[in-house]
């Protein structure tokens, strides 16, 4: 800007005055000499107008953030850091049986149902399962074939299907036939495939060859016993961003928690199996979480046969009563890592009649809950903002007016440093670190709100010329609480800055 712009105003002003004088003045020599007196222009503009809330301070504005605020009815805040939700569907636990070929070598052929040895299927409702028949004969006449599966039933009737091999046909392949809705009931885990082939005159014959092919055996519902197994839920970790800007100082929470929540729609017993549970601190050290939950594991609730379609939930938590979390979080935890498996039928009790259906799933989620109730000792946090002051190239001096108020029942010392492109400190916004006293509290320890504090900082020409090199501002706060205190959702730091900037034109 600027100067060129203001010179344009000056030139236009001179032009107009000269024009007036041209018509009115007899002494033209003066006209040509008209100049504009140099003057100082001072502009007042607002720069920053923010009330920094807890939400801002925990970096929750990022859409990818894994943190949420839980605010109780009294307004007290708990930070909840969430890991990814891990979920297992029915197909991952009870996988479909791929293409199966069953030769039918006689008019009645018995095959084993292809389940694992330690599994017992009492009842299985076919889902999207299709079969086809391949038949060969050399009689040259039309042949009527009745195909049946006695163990496959619906409404009390066994499965039966009639096929016609046209006259003169030696090799016949049927269309795909669906078994969906038919139930396989076989106490001895066997299936009988029968056929009855007759000529037009009723004479029964044997086919030269007959084969049944099933594309994939899929059950919508299975009842029985599914055996012992361990499902790998996969490890994961939860990032605790609260201390991303930590520099130094201590922070302790009264009751940090790791909450584990399980949903189970499968009708069989599942037990937790903790492989690892650790925390990582700001210094990069890793510590094991110690708890009897890890040693003894937890049985997850599950629906019984009378509760098919229902979802049972189980939750448990690591806290200050059953773990060393309080001590671990004093080390300023930045990450909680875990690796949990699910143990199916851990007691191998075959007397349990289990089930799974097509909508069954198993879900586990892990949250770290940090109730903001604790003590802060000389905790220093800092963050940077990009700021280019080179655009104020015509400002000769300025006066910053800062208005601040601290709602927190904690003393906060505040400073903003101007950094150049090498991150070297050029100057600071306040001559000395600005101390915002702890807000006064009521009998319950809740803040009554901060009082506004106004500060003026003057930058003369030489000082302002220096901070024009600014490329970043380093915001630094130092926090102290005298005793454990709760943080409420309406707490914040009011931070307003305006500037009067002077330039000569």
């Amino acid at each position, binding site marked *: 800007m*600027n100067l060129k712009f203001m010179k344009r*105003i000056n030139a236009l002003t001179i032009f*107009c005055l000269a*024009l007036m004088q041209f018509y*009115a*003045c007899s002494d033209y020599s003066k006209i040509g000499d008209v100049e504009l*007196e140099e003057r100082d222009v001072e502009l007042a503009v*607002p720069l920053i107008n923010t009330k920094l809330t807890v939400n801002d301070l925990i970096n929750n504005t990022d859409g990818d953030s894994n943190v949420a605020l839980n605010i109780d009815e009294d307004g007290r805040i708990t930070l909840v850091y969430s890991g990814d939700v891990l979920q297992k569907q029915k197909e991952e636990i009870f996988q479909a049986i791929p293409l199966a070929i069953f030769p039918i070598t006689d008019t009645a052929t018995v095959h084993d149902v292809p389940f694992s040895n330690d599994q017992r299927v009492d009842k299985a409702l076919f889902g999207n399962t299709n079969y086809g028949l391949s038949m060969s004969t050399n009689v040259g006449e039309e042949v009527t074939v009745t195909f049946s599966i006695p163990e496959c039933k619906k409404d009390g009737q066994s499965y039966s299907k009639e096929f016609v091999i046209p006259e003169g046909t030696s090799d016949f392949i049927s269309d795909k036939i669906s078994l969906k809705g038919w139930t396989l009931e076989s106490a001895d885990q066997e299936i009988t495939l029968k056929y009855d082939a007759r000529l037009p005159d009723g004479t029964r014959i044997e086919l030269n060859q007959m084969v049944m092919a099933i594309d994939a055996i899929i059950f919508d519902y299975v009842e029985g016993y599914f055996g012992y197994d361990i499902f790998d839920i996969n490890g994961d970790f939860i990032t605790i961003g609260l201390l991303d800007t930590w520099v130094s100082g201590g922070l302790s929470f009264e009751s940090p928690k790791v909450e584990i929540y399980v949903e189970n729609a499968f009708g069989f017993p599942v037990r937790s199996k903790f492989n690892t549970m650790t925390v990582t601190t700001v210094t990069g050290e890793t510590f094991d979480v110690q708890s009897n939950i890890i040693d003894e594991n937890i049985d997850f609730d599950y629906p019984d046969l009378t509760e098919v379609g229902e979802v049972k939930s189980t939750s448990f938590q690591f806290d200050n009563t059953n773990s060393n979390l309080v001590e671990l979080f004093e080390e300023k935890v930045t990450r909680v890592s875990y690796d949990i498996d699910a143990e199916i039928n851990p007691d191998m009790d075959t007397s349990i009649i289990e089930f799974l259906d097509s909508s069954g799933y198993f879900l586990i989620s892990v949250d770290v809950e940090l109730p903001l109730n604790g003590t802060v000792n000389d905790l220093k946090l800092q963050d940077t903002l990009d700021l280019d002051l080179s655009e104020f190239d015509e400002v000769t001096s300025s006066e910053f*007016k800062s208005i601040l108020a601290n709602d927190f029942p904690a003393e906060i010392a505040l400073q903003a440093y101007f950094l150049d492109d090498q991150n070297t400190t050029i100057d600071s916004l306040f001559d000395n670190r600005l101390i915002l006293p702890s807000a006064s509290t009521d009998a319950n320890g809740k803040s009554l709100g901060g009082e506004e504090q106004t500060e003026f900082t003057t930058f003369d020409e030489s000082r302002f010329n220096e901070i024009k090199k600014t490329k970043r501002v380093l915001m630094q706060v130092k926090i102290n609480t005298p005793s454990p205190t709760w943080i409420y959702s309406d707490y914040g730091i009011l931070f307003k800055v305006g500037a009067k900037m002077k*330039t000569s034109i």
Partner: protein
Amino acid sequence: MTKLSTILYTLVILVISGLGSNLYAQNLQPFFIKDVFQQSYYNPALNTKGNINLATTLGVDISTNGPSLAEITNETNDGKLVISAETALDNMNDYNDIYGYTNIHTLDFSINTPLVRLTVGHALKASGWTQYSKNLAELITYGNAPYVGQTLDIGPKFDFLSYHEFYLGVQKSFGPLSVGANFKYLSGTNAFKTESSKLELTTSDDIYQLHVNTDYRVLSSNSFVFEDITNFDLNVDNYDFNNAFNGNNGFAIDLGAAFEVNDKLQLSASIMDLGSINWNTESYVYSSNISKSYEGVDISDYFNNEEEFAIEDSLKNLLELEEEDVEFSTSLPSHIYIGGTYQLTSSLAVGALIHSRGSGDQRTNSLALNATTTIGGWLSVGGMYVIKENNFSNLGLFASGKIGPVRGFISTDNVVSYLSPENAKSANIIAGLNIQI
């Protein structure tokens, strides 16, 4: 971060166009110069002399009710004039008007036929008016910092138009009564006019939050190009041929009558420039109707992204103008003249003329009293006292000489401005040539 330029642009933008406009008004003296064709510029019925007339005329005028040059400048020890903002503001009214007018008759031709007297001619005309507030001048001079906690009224007003005029005139005398009319085709070249001009800036005493309250609406044709508040251009031109005959058509009429009461007294009345122009080339309306604040940047928005902390865009948005294509019509500033002359002796005449000029609420009135003497049959000189609104110090002079069929004249309504130019609040000159056969 913002540039100072943005802020200043935002605060002073519209006054520049006022300073850059060509601003003129009108000289009344030729009305009293006998036997010149240019009398018909004031009343088409006064075109009564000669069988053939050729004429050309240049007239320019500027006046203000604001400070004079002396009231905005200081003289330095070495005799230079320096514009002093402090001096200017001390002498400024709360609201200050500047009027202006140009009238260039490139050529007029008139012939007396047996039936009527016919005239054709071409002229370039431009007129402008602007009003600026003392608040605006203060803001430009000192910035807004001295006015923290105050609301400044900074919306300037404008009314500028320029056009080409082609006319056909007829005049007929019926004994002592003479009547005349001019029928004009107009080709507009530039228009720039505020319809509403509310523009208030409040600077809070907290952290200097800016609040803008606007109801601003400006019409433009071939004049204003606006991209954003930091990128605009205003170009109004009194002598624009580029935009002539490219739309912007208009029509106007002049009507007049004169009556010879006796061989000494003549009375006349006329209404001139009764018409309008329809603007349809590059014609836009720029408007802002907001009550909006800029409170500063919420820095929490910047904690989790890589964006640079910036306030420039917000300041720009504070005073955006919306552009819309429109056709619009502007009336010409019409003129009403009522006057008379009385021949006291064979060489001395006196006269009076009432002039009302303008349109809508921008009408100005003046009264001119004249005395003219003829010396040796070829030289006329005259003096005139003009009372304008709030301005009683206008003493005019003219001189007119004749060589054969050619008569030339030069005149000003305010000779005082030449004697004390620094204190002048109006200045004008009109000069013309007339060949009369």
